């Protein structure tokens, strides 16, 4: 009867091993790795130089002197450089009547460049992709663009494809969140996240100032990323996703109306950006950080912050004084090495820089991205990341915080850890040495500055 106790012990050991293995595999499955990503670099003939932009503006006979001055002011202050890209139909002078085919061609250019590149570089066959998540803010044809990807690359029949639209500039991280959620339910999943914005059908040709802003800021671009939870890819992965926080303050009226797709008084469609936008961004950002900070910051910093807050409250209560507006600040640099901010515009970058207490070095990637590529909406994050990588800033163990803002109003953020030293220049390859340039001032003022000297307010004033 020596055998039975032995058997029992063996069985118990086996059971314990099983439980441990399950726990480990569950933990492994909850990991999410960024295998690789590729940013879209449109062909050079799509570049918008000062002359091209001038021609496009001049073409629009509805604009008067007042609008010219407004546009000049916006462009000069926008932080956008000479090398951004716009869709072909605008260059060809058809921005007033964009066709369905124009929009599809713009997307096709992107698919055949970035999506193909990311698959090629990682060596992942299209048939190995289990999940495809695509988001393009303001263009949703039927069949969806994600079906177009499936057709173009010949993916499997049971691929889980999702097409997101209308989620604004922060949709890049919504797509990542969606992919990560699916991965939590499926072991060894390969997810392709495709992010872009369609500019071709959304060029505003009217004279509403709040809607003309979009034309000055938004440019063509896109990015594709491969995410996986397969532990086998761990050594090849670039980064690992630690946490992702989403905040949506659409319940607030002003924030909801900050960016709206609507028609102007003449019935021309465009995205109107209201004056309340920066305020909404700050509000959403605060909500987001409240939930994000406890998850990513070291306990010491949190304790310091809590203690100071408490002290201050006690102190001021005793003296019966009104609390001053600026309270103690959390030092995010204790938990984050690189800040990957959405380059929505110089104002947004400045606001975030100020509220987080960042240096010029921290926001350099975002500024440079805005200068080189413009605001490419949801995909701009990946350009910023690529800049850091091209500058060889990302070392093993570094922590990267991504923050995006978008219509709705949403603020999404996620926190990555770099798995290995990165040095892939990607889309920045041929221009990384020129950045940062000595000055970010663009030559619009030199060329069109005379608009400010011309007398009159003139509607109907034509060059």
């Amino acid at each position, binding site marked *: 009867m020596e055998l*039975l106790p032995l058997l*029992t012990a063996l069985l118990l050991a086996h*059971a314990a091993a*099983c*439980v441990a293995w*399950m726990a480990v595999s569950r933990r492994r499955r909850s990991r999410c790795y960024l295998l690789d990503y590729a940013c879209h670099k449109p062909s050079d003939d799509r570049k918008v130089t000062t002359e091209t932009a001038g021609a496009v503006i001049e073409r629009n006979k509805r604009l008067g002197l007042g609008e010219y001055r407004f546009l000049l002011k916006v462009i000069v202050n926008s932080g956008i450089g000479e090398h951004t890209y716009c869709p072909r139909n605008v260059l060809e002078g058809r921005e007033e009547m964009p*066709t*369905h*085919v124009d929009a599809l061609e713009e997307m096709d250019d992107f698919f055949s460049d970035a999506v193909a590149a990311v698959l090629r570089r990682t060596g992942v066959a299209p048939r190995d992709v289990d999940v495809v998540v695509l988001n393009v*803010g*303001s263009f*949703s*044809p*039927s*069949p*969806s*663009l*994600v*079906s*177009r990807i*499936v*057709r173009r690359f*010949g*993916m499997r*029949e*049971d*691929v*889980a*494809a*999702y*097409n*997101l*639209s*209308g*989620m*604004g500039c922060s949709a890049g991280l919504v797509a990542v*969140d*969606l992919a990560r*959620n*699916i991965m*939590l*339910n499926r072991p060894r999943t390969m997810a392709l996240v495709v992010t872009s914005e369609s500019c071709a059908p959304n060029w505003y040709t009217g004279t509403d100032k709040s809607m003309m802003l979009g034309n000055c800021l938004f440019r063509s671009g896109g990015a594709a990323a491969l995410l996986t939870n397969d532990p086998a890819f761990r050594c090849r992965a670039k980064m690992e996703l630690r946490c992702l926080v*989403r*905040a*949506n303050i*659409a*319940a607030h*009226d002003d924030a*909801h109306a900050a*960016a*709206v*797709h*609507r*028609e102007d008084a003449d*019935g021309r469609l465009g995205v109107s950006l209201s004056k309340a936008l920066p305020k909404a961004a700050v509000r959403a950002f605060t909500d987001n950080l409240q*939930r994000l900070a406890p998850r990513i910051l070291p306990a010491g910093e949190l304790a310091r912050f809590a203690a100071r807050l408490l002290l201050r409250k006690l102190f001021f209560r005793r003296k019966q004084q009104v609390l001053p507006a600026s309270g103690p600040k959390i030092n995010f640099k204790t938990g984050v090495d690189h800040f990957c901010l959405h380059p929505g515009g110089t104002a947004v970058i400045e606001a975030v820089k100020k509220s987080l207490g960042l240096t010029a070095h921290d926001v350099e990637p975002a500024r440079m991205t805005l200068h080189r590529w413009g605001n490419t909406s949801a995909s701009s994050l990946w350009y910023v990341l690529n800049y850091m990588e091209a500058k060889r800033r990302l070392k093993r163990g570094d922590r990267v915080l991504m923050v995006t803002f978008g*219509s*709705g*109003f*949403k603020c999404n953020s996620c926190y990555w850890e770099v798995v290995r030293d990165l040095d892939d220049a990607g889309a920045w390859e041929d221009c990384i040495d020129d950045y940062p340039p000595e000055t970010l001032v663009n030559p619009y003022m030199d060329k069109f500055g005379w608009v400010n000297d011309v007398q009159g307010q003139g509607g109907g004033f034509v060059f």
Partner: protein
Amino acid sequence: MSSDLSVNHVDDRSLACASKEPCGPPTCVDNSFARSHLAALNPPRSLPPVPKPHALSLAEQSSHTPQSTLLPATVLYRTASMSSSAAQAQLKQLKPLYQHVVNNFVAVFAAPLVVAALVNAARVGPEELLVRVQALRAVHVFLIAFVPAAAATLYLMLRPRSVYLVDYACFRTRPNCRVPFATFLEHAKLVTFVEGASIDERSVRFMTRLLERSGLGEETCLPPAHHYIPPYRNMEASRAEVEVVIFSAIDDLLAKTGISASSIDILIVNCSLFAPIPSFTDMIIHRYKMRKDIRNVHLSGMGCSAGLISVGLARNFLQVAPRGARALVVSTETITPNYYVGKERAMLLPNCLFRMGGAAVLLSTSRANARFRLARVVRTLTGAQDSAYRCVFQEEDAEGHRGINLNKDLMTIAGDALKANITAIGPLVLPASEQLLFALSFIARRVLNRRVKPYLPDFRTAFEHFCIHAGGRAVIDELQRSLGLSDEDVEASRMALHRFGNTSSSSVWYELAYIEAKGRMRKGDRVWMIGFGSGFKCNSAAWECIAPPRSAEGPWEESICRYPVDIPEPSQVRAHEIDPSIDLYLGLTSACGAVRPRPDRWLCAGRAGLTHGHLHTYSRSSRGPLHRRIVYLCLFTLSFVYYPFVPAAPLIIHFCIRLKANEMYYCELNPSLHIALYYLY
């Protein structure tokens, strides 16, 4: 097959005769009964004609004595069928037995073992057993008790969480948005005069014929913006439609379930062709003041099958959310911006088919108050093939009018997508008997080099109710044909198409509402939802009913008493005379014609001596389970009296017990039973 026909045929005749009996006029209001009655009076053309006097004489016989009721069946059976088909018929009769054995394989296998163990125990005697029990050591007890318990606990802890449907609500169309055919066509005619629209007189004629064949009724609704001339297609009007549809559906849902909007953790909306900024999800959050940390996703461009994709996505989110989390799924289609004003025929079709509609569904991981359990979601996307991708395609016509082009190959492509989908879902839902047959036929096909016809599994063994996307008449016909479904099974789809039109991704929810409004949903029933959509996608979801609806309110509240309606078959001859090109599109709207009245099952009961009066009272009394049971008992006794054949009794008892909710079941099974019993006799 021929034997089957002959049996049905007999059924038809004898019902026709039986209905002439003075058995009391059917005072019923039950439409299904009235329809079947009418259908029986007008037998379908596809059946071979039978000399009328003969049928009459048969009927006379049948009305005289119970014994002679068997005669017509056998007479015709013998004359009409060949020996091979007789063998097939016998095989068919054996099938229930086979299914019973295979599906309860464990029980069948375990029962003899248990019996053997008991016999053994009895032989050993109680004292000896007691001694053996006392001889057990702690180790044994541990092994016997603890290890299985631990295994069971582990399994329960680690299995994926179930997702439940708490409730759903469909947008109730409003009378002021109604577009009868006449209104629609008059409006279209007036649009021809609008500047910029190239729609012309011919297009209107074409749409007239399409509408006649579409299977749509006179009560479908278009958004208010489409009632203007020219129809408004701007952002503002589109937003107005969205607000009317989704907010009223969500209001209904929240009122029904009594939960507050702030307790919703996940929000998923799908709308194919309209994706404004801010998105629908933001509009909903804004309106209902939902929480800041809500996870929202707006799916667009995913076509008519996106409703099930949203459900699958909500399941994914719920399974990793904290227990008890709630997800709100809203499916709709905004048609305001998509009115096509060109004259491309393939693109005019959506104008005729798509109508206003939307549904809001509340899912949760908690079983409390849940009404359905989500069993499976299976998606297929055949977009890798070019033809499938282009089959439903949004584009601009030669004159620059944007519209949706429905390809003529739609049915073939839908068929392929369906095949891929049922291959995926079949093994997950079908009972063992069907799977075994399918596997055998598959092996046979491989071995015998494709000379054997592939076995088409009978999905009616896996599901009680079918919600097929009401994409159009042809889609429903094709599915009915390829899955071997009865008219009863696809009734919900046809009626939803008739009452609400093609409401895109929300149509499956209107169909579910129909089934529930008809009072057909019972606890434990399984429902299969199938959606088709651009891409080309075929998605399906399997649900299991936990509780039937608590109240009768819903989108069908006012009109359910008029349904099911008979959908007339349009005269195709006229169409050919007018315009030969209509042929091309017949495939889309009226391939197989109207609801074909199936030789009715009441009839078998009529042959068994039950008059319509009986059945009528029976069908009306079938509300409560007690009534039903009493009626089953009566039916059972009757058939038992008919066939004083003892060996068959267990079989009959078995079927009577298995009747479950479906009141038709008994009658359906009976013809084969009659014949089998007759042979045995």
